[in-house]
């Protein structure tokens, strides 16, 4: 759960300010185009913005946070072009809801500066086995191929930017 006092971290992550969400008129056009609603999950992205604006707690396991596909259909439809998928992603990170797959992705970036797919597969092998992905292997043979990882020499430390507080300035 993200408590009211913890909303600031979401604003910091997204570079939106609380007042940026005051323009939301509640038209729900974001909900009408949301891909998550094609999954019959009945989500309303506008409700998430409202919770952040008025400072209400956000529950764990919100279906939008779990299933948002980052399709940006909401952003394209929104009269204010609010990048809701980025808000959702910030909430997800704040809630610590990242999956093993997402963690392996970031770990690879920390080690090599690039995503080394064999590493991600190895780190998530159990999930792939338990999740029933094996049956897709014949279709995925075209994606296979071995290459050694390349170690990037210069990658800005990923926490280098965390010292600033962009939420004070908002989005350009």
């Amino acid at each position: 759960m993200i408590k009211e006092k913890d909303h600031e971290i979401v604003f910091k992550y997204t570079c939106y300010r609380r007042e940026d969400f005051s323009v939301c008129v509640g038209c729900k056009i974001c909900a009408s185009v949301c891909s998550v609603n094609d999954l019959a999950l009945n989500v309303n992205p506008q409700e998430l913005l409202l919770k952040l604006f008025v400072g209400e707690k956000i529950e764990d396991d919100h279906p939008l946070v779990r299933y948002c596909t980052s399709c940006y259909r909401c952003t394209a439809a929104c009269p204010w072009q609010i990048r809701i998928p980025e808000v959702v992603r910030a909430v997800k990170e704040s809630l610590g809801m990242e999956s093993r797959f997402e963690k392996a992705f970031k770990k690879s970036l920390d080690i090599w500066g690039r995503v080394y797919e064999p590493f991600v597969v190895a780190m998530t092998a159990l999930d792939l086995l338990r999740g029933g992905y094996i049956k897709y292997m014949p279709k995925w043979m075209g994606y296979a191929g071995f290459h050694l990882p390349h170690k990037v020499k210069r990658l800005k430390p990923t926490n280098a930017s965390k010292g600033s507080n962009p939420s004070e300035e908002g989005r350009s």
Partner: protein
Amino acid sequence: MMEYGYYPGCSLTGSAKRLDQGVRRLCKKLGHSLAEIPDWNCCGALEYGDRNELVSISGENLKKAQGICREIIVPCPACYKNLKDADPERSFNIMSPLELLNPENLSQIEQKRDLKGQVFFPYYGCLLMRPEGNSIKNRNIMEDTISAFGGDVNGENMKDRCCGGNQLFLNKWATERLSTLILGKTKGTVVVFCPFCHMAMKTFATGRKVVYLTDLLLYVMGESNSL
């Protein structure tokens, strides 16, 4: 003939190697040369909740490109979006390979085969079309390309719907439902330009081919023998 910077991105060194090879071969055929950005790093894809962190990671690639190139070809749509987000001043011209295609150079392509009698579904997915300001300029370029070589196209109202590709390893039922929704309302060979879309469509399509547009062009040019 132009010289462009080239940012392949992580998936094009692995699971989407086919797209990487296709883009390189296509550019060569169009007379363009590609100079890979030295020591490029991951763009961060869709995995970071902290926008500043994401922009910082993507922006590092633009620093590495400084003094080398101003126009950068970026095939992967997620990388394309992130590099554009990292360059709000538009100091660089971040381009999808799709933006290299236009009616003029399509008509100059030395055509060895045509696509007559074949049906295609040109599928762009999300990040080539949204968010506004980051999208490709010609939103019909795949249709234009396929039509130029005699192929029939369908699926206009599904071409920018979401396949759920980035949920494939998180909630595969969601990807299956979104992809099959698109597949059910379209017909013919699925033509994509996104590695996520390729994998999602390939995984859930039954009895339909899924190809990159580069595969199609190289086939038309006689550079490959089958689709």
